[in-house]
């Protein structure tokens, strides 16, 4: 079920009306659980079993990590099982292709396993599982005493399947979510958050991302050979804006919907294209993933505490794995390493005392440089076939003589402009009334100028 579909609107209205009935107060968590499972099973009911199995294992492992005789072992098993599920369903084909080359050699049973569909949201819910097991073992959130298996399993299930963030995050750490589970009242809804996040989120998704998707469909090769260099560059810029609008839009809708149900989710984006360094970019882009990788991977690897070389290596490892987390193709790993190398080089420059200058012009140049680097990297996202990426880059350098499409430039400029304004004019600078008036205009734009509905880009991960 997509947030931008009519059926979701009906579903949400029904869920909220029943959820806040006084008679339902004792059963709110169970009702949310049922709603989340229906949400997940709507289009692919056969995948529900895997989700429940993953949640069940996480529940038992996290319970054992708190109450069992060997907490470290329970936590290790819980983490490995979650990562094993992710590896099996997401990376089976990549691993088999890389190791065997010819998939025909595998045989019919193996082949059937390789063609299993990628369960929606598996990258997100397995990370939630990992977070819960580790946070339980570390004792990072207050738990009821004594901890009982049944209520713990119920809460675990809600943490993993909570529908606003089930399919594409934000990745909420267990320590942030679990303490929030409890009774919610209609009068306690933070309506400002609901309206702000939902209007802005739907605007970014339906007006900006869905319309830009029609343009960026031309980022495909060999069709790219027929486009002018300027068109190819502007399309890359458009994709940079689209992927931001799509994912930030999704995250905002998720935050708004969670607020409507009485839960707070962490922000996932903070004007990322204003980052003036690569480290800054990752503090602003997909913040929940960066924070997850930092806490559960970078720091356990030693972070920056084991010398310079090890720090650079850790950055490369974390970003390489972070890239692979996005998709089961080597181009995603290269995308991750592309960022890892940038972070490592930046760190090296800082370690050598190079600051890059502190003036406004120097900062603007750094922002532009980071943006250009990040935008170029998105090509690996859009074209998972590495040969296509090279062909696209070649076309940029060879198609100078072709005339660019003025229509395309105008359309892209019209849809990128709101993203630029969003970055340069933070809503905190506006009065409450001014902010609401702008949200009203955005709501009008959603009615008048939404593009055809597309699935969220991050749903594929």
């Amino acid at each position, binding site marked *: 079920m997509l947030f931008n579909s*009519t059926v979701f609107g009906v579903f949400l209205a029904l869920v909220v009306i029943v959820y806040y009935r006084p008679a339902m107060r004792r059963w709110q968590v169970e009702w949310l659980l049922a709603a989340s499972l229906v949400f997940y099973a709507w289009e692919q009911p056969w995948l529900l079993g895997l989700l429940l199995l993953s949640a069940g294992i996480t529940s038992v492992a996290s319970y054992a990590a708190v109450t069992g005789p060997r907490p470290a072992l329970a936590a290790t098993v819980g983490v490995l099982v979650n990562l094993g599920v992710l590896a099996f369903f997401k990376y089976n084909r990549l691993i088999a292709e890389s190791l065997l080359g010819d998939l025909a050699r595998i045989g019919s049973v193996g082949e059937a396993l390789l063609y299993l569909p990628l369960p929606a949201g598996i990258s997100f819910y397995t990370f939630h599982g990992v977070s819960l097991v580790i946070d339980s073992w570390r004792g990072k959130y207050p738990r009821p005493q004594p901890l009982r298996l049944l209520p713990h399993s119920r809460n675990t299930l809600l943490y993993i399947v909570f529908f606003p963030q089930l399919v594409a995050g934000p990745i909420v750490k267990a320590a942030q979510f679990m303490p929030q589970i409890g009774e919610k009242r209609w*009068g*306690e*809804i*933070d*309506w*400002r958050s*609901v*309206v702000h996040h939902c*209007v802005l989120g739907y605007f970014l998704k339906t007006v900006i991302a869905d*319309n830009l998707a*029609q*343009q960026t469909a031309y980022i495909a090769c060999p069709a790219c*050979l*027929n486009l002018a260099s300027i068109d190819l560059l502007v399309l890359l810029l458009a994709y940079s804006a689209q992927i931001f609008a799509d994912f930030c839009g999704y995250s905002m809708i998720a935050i708004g919907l969670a607020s409507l149900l009485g839960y707070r989710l962490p922000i996932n984006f903070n004007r990322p294209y204003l980052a003036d360094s690569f480290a800054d970019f990752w503090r602003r882009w997909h913040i929940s993933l960066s924070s997850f990788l930092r806490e559960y991977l970078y720091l356990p690897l030693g972070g920056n505490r084991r010398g310079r070389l090890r720090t650079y290596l850790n950055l490369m490892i974390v970003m390489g794995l972070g890239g692979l987390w996005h998709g089961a193709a080597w181009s995603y790993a290269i995308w991750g390493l592309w960022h890892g190398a940038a972070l490592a080089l930046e760190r090296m420059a800082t370690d050598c005392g190079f600051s890059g200058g502190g003036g406004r012009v120097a900062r603007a140049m750094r922002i532009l440089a980071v943006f250009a680097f990040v935008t170029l990297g998105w090509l690996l996202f859009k074209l998972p076939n590495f040969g296509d990426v090279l062909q696209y880059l070649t076309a940029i350098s060879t198609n100078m003589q*072709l005339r660019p499409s*003025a*229509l395309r430039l*105008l*359309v892209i400029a*019209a*849809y990128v402009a709101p993203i630029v304004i969003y970055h340069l004019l933070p809503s905190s600078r506006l009065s409450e*009334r001014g902010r*609401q*008036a702008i*949200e*009203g*205009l955005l*709501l*009008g*734009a959603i*009615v*008048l*100028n939404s*593009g*055809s509905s597309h699935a969220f880009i991050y749903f594929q991960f």
Partner: protein
Amino acid sequence: MPSFTSSSRTVLVTAALALAIYAAVIALWRPTIHLYPDQDASNLARAERVLIGEGDPHTVILGSSLGVRIPDDWLPAGWLNASLGGKGAATGLALLRASSMRPRRILVETNTFDLGPDLAFVQDAQGPIPLALRTWVPGLRAEYRPINLLLSLAGRARGGAHAHRGSGSLAEACLSLQAQVQGDIVSAEIVGREVARLTARPVPSGLVARMVDWRAALRAEQERGVEVILFEWPVDPEVMRSPRAAAIRTTVAETLPTLRFLRLDGEGLATEDGLHLAPVSARHAACALLHAVGG
């Protein structure tokens, strides 16, 4: 916590005001939209015109992106161009059946006769804003999306390939076009590459079965009193001679022998990619179609 009313009153009032003002401006002005940001937007606007059927057109062109190249102002009054990019005439026919419009004549493009109807698109075109509401409030139509308005205004100011044909009659415009037959600038490299790709396309499988569907569908239209004319848009001569194009042409002639089948002369016309006519050539083709059909 702020209440729902205090959090959303200004939002809702501003949105309602913005929508009301926009709807009023469009209703009073009714600008001509001739540029769309993308194929999808163009398709939705064209589908909407069929579904609403405003002006009761007597002649409807059903076809693909080849026909999208024909600007609306190069067709006579009472003609509706329901060509849809990325789809074939079958989708246009499905739209026509879903609407209450009853034209006297349909011109069916055969170049993409192998494509079946895109019923999901026909469904999508009927929402999410109800058609009845869009009929009465033109500002809510897909055709009048703010981006379409912005582009059409910019296109008009810029002129060139997007210029309006002027205030004279269509016949005069067609005559004056004769002097501009070499007016299209195209990239020989792109055309060459695309022609090589297009001529290598295989003959579509299931062509005969598709033709049987067509025969039934067109016979139903004829039984309702609709005149059916088949026609083939000119494309690059090599593509025209390709096995795929030849197979479609032969199958059409064999399966639908009683229908009038127009093959427009492509002599001297230029395509941008072997398939889609360049702006001046597209206007030539529109004039040729009018001439062949007889107004």
